[in-house]
């Protein structure tokens, strides 16, 4: 029964759901302090953050990923992209809100569904997170902090800012090409163009409208970030390359398909 602390954000009490508001009534100190202390202390539940997870046939791991996140982030939205397995059941059992695509529409489509839903629910911050367990919950405060302090509107996870050598070599080559591709097509200088771990402020998320349903959304979202004028930062994050995530991940050959989808998407609007 720890009171949820209001100092998690810049204290917008009016933006809080009722139960956390109740606890802030007793919390005289933080209500008076204009600048809250560091976000994410041990008991703060981040009710204004929505975690969006697009999942396709991830029944084996999705429950674990959701349960882990729910410890600190009560709003986890799993978009089941027409899975053939029990992804939706597992995610629901673990405590996530589950949105089900009746038929498979691709990761970009699923993420946009999650973003739209989170905005409808009044999210102040939206994080996209991978379903396969390759992202680390411990990185989230690092991505959210610049948003909360209003230094940035979007934070992009990058696996190469710190220790890129942890990334398997073939993957490093493909990702390096993706970075180059992004530099040419979008004019953005990033160290990691295709990282699924991203955090958006509400205003930035409202400018995102992913129309490339499959994997090319990763480039599309960068274009939209740039054209909306949102301030973005790259934040070093850790990617866990497990056997599972490697098998489920994109293979190098998919890069051509992604590039094609993206280029066609730039021609047909």
């Amino acid at each position, binding site marked *: 029964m720890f009171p949820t602390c209001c100092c998690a954000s810049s204290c917008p009490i009016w933006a809080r759901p009722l139960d956390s508001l109740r606890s802030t009534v007793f919390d005289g100190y933080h209500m008076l302090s204009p600048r809250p202390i560091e976000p994410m202390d041990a008991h703060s539940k981040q009710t204004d953050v929505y975690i969006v997870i697009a999942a396709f046939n991830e029944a084996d791991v999705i429950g674990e990923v959701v349960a882990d996140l729910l410890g600190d982030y009560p709003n986890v939205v799993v*978009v089941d992209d027409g899975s053939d397995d029990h992804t*939706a059941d597992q995610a*629901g059992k673990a*405590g*996530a*809100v*589950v*949105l*089900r*695509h*009746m*038929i498979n*529409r691709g990761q970009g*489509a699923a993420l*946009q*569904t999650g973003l*739209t*839903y989170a905005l*409808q629910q009044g999210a102040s911050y939206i994080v996209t997170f991978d379903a396969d367990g390759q992202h680390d919950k411990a990185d989230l405060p690092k991505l959210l902090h610049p948003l909360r302090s209003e230094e940035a509107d979007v934070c992009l996870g990058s696996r190469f800012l710190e220790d890129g050598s942890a990334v398997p070599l073939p993957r490093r080559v493909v990702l390096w090409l993706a970075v180059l591709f992004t530099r040419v097509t979008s004019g953005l200088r990033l160290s990691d163009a295709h990282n699924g771990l991203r955090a958006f402020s509400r205003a930035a998320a409202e400018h995102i409208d992913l*129309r490339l*349903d499959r994997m090319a959304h990763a480039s599309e979202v960068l274009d939209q970030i740039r054209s909306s004028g949102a301030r973005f930062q790259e934040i070093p994050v850790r990617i866990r390359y497990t056997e599972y995530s490697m098998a489920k991940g994109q293979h190098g050959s998919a890069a051509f398909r992604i590039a094609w989808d993206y280029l066609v998407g730039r021609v*047909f609007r």
Partner: protein
Amino acid sequence: MNLFQTLALIPLLVMASLTVRGAVRGQIRKRVAFLWLLLWLGAAAALVWPRSTVFVAERLGIGRGADLVLYVGVLLSLSGFFYVYTRFRRLDRQITLLVRAVAIENAHLPTPLPVSPPRGTAKTS
């Protein structure tokens, strides 16, 4: 008319009659049906009077009538392909929007933890 001309005319006539029927029943818009009819008639004319293609081809500066038919055929196929492709993309987009709307409409909220008993009829499913 030789055998080929007779045989090839049959599908053209079938297509033309289907087009007319579609237009009469309102399944095809009149203007579109007219374009299709024009295509079938053109094909039939080229089939029955092969010399006519030579006549047109020479006017256009193309050597042979058969070349004209080939060029026109390729152009029509390509533009048809392009048209279908754009239609497909639009359809794809509409399906995604539909799937998204249904997904959000039917959001499955997590079952609340049994801290406070649910209001109304308490039922477990």
